[in-house]
């Protein structure tokens, strides 16, 4: 296959998945809330996404006169670019991986730390109070959760002796890392949810407190990009959890790519259930939880993993 064909196919599939997971989320949320959800357009309401797309494209693409125009336009692009770049290092199956390099996990941390800019720039360039408040919350939240996201990942690195994701998947051929790293998995799950600011950590866009947070001033496709970017983030974190803790594409009988899709799909459903089940914490509770509880826990996890590894090696 051509070297540019595989990335192109993955890109198209991801964008479609990102769009259709909005439908999935709305249907599942309504199922859990005893409603029907969007079921009018097409079979099971599957074409609702297309209808939404038409609506969002015909809306006025409004740039407020008081906004910082250039930053206002590039902010939604950054979140899309950074999330899509993250998929470049994911091994979807033994021979489907866009980029293979040795420091893939560090690349991932760099990507996730750069995606903060999208929201900060959106909040700053909108030049409005609610957007600024949302952006400030996001910056503080993502910075503090990023710290122990990296520390939780180091447990996996210690176990597999490698930063590259395909080597990490290979190292799990006998036992999945969830068995050795249950605490690390929980920490990464929480940090990942906070990084993509999904409910219950969606304080940056808490509607009841600060209108819509950083994207208050956005409309049309620019808002659509933030929206799809969030769902792409959910898919990225789900596929990372699969790769790092649940053996990636490995599994019996079925072809590798099917295993990967099954495991990732499970975690996408889990994230949607999380939104339906857990209420949003208060902002100061969120920060205290991260620095007082999760950071010491992740440090202890790192030390413990390192000590055991040393003890076994002798």
């Amino acid at each position, binding site marked *: 296959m051509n070297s540019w064909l595989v990335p192109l196919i993955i890109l198209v599939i991801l964008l479609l998945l990102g769009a259709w997971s909005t439908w999935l989320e709305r249907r599942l949320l309504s199922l859990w809330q005893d409603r029907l959800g969007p079921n009018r357009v097409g079979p099971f309401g599957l074409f609702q996404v297309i209808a939404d797309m038409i609506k969002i494209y015909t809306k006025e693409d409004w740039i407020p006169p008081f906004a910082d125009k250039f930053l206002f336009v590039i902010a939604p692009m950054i979140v899309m670019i950074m999330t899509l770049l993250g998929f470049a290092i994911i091994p979807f199956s033994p021979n489907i991986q866009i980029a293979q390099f040795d*420091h893939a996990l560090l690349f991932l941390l760099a990507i996730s730390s750069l995606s903060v800019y999208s929201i900060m720039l959106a909040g700053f360039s909108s030049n409005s109070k609610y957007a*600024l408040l949302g952006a400030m919350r996001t910056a503080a939240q993502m910075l503090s959760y990023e710290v122990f996201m990296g520390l939780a990942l180091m447990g996996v690195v210690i176990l597999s002796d490698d930063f590259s994701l395909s080597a990490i998947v290979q190292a799990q051929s006998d036992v999945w890392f969830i068995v050795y790293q249950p605490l690390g998995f929980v920490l990464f799950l929480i940090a990942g949810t906070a990084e993509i600011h999904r409910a219950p950590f969606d304080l940056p866009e808490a509607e009841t407190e600060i209108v819509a947070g950083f994207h208050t001033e956005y409309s049309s496709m620019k808002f659509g990009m933030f929206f799809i970017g969030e769902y792409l983030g959910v898919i990225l974190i789900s596929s990372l959890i699969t790769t790092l803790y649940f053996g990636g594409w490995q599994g019996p009988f079925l072809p590798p790519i099917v295993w990967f899709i099954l495991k990732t799909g499970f975690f996408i459903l889990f994230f949607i259930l999380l939104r339906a089940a857990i209420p949003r914490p208060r902002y100061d509770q969120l920060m205290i939880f991260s620095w007082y509880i999760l950071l010491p826990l992740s440090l202890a996890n790192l030390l413990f993993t390192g000590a055991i590894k040393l003890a076994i090696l002798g």
Partner: protein
Amino acid sequence: MIDNLFLISAAVILISALLTITAHNVVHALLYLVVTMLAVSMVFFLLGASFAAALQIIVYAGAIMVLFIFVTMMLHQGEKSLAQERHLFHFSTSIGAFILTLILFCELIFILFFMPLDIDNALTHTYHSEFISVKQIGKQLYGPYSLLVVISAMMLLSALITAIHISKSAHILPKTTKNQEAKL
């Protein structure tokens, strides 16, 4: 190929550093500084130090610059602070620095073209240095340089304690909790 990539990222570093100094809007200036950091990390990557490149992005572009922008975002007052900046920044204030830089630049030109240094050879040697793994860095840091690691850890710890102390003493003054403030 690698020469061209290096030249491009070096040019990006120079231009964005210049724009960092000259931009009137503080947030724009900081964003140019972020671009400088990214380009510096690209240069590290070309030199074979991909660990340093990743850390450059994670620590500088991803954490420190975010905090800088965080603070300036809160202090920024739109058109008012822009006018203030314009008022502060004149070309005449930068003449001293400009002259000094010009002297350095002349020196650089002199070294490049008139000194019998084997610069071409030195450059090609550094480009194609082998890939440095994290394991090697760790062995160096916790082997011959372990004392430096300990000293820098102590410095960071003392900075941390100082920061906590300063914020604590400022915090004690108003003896109201968050809930009480909300009631007031």
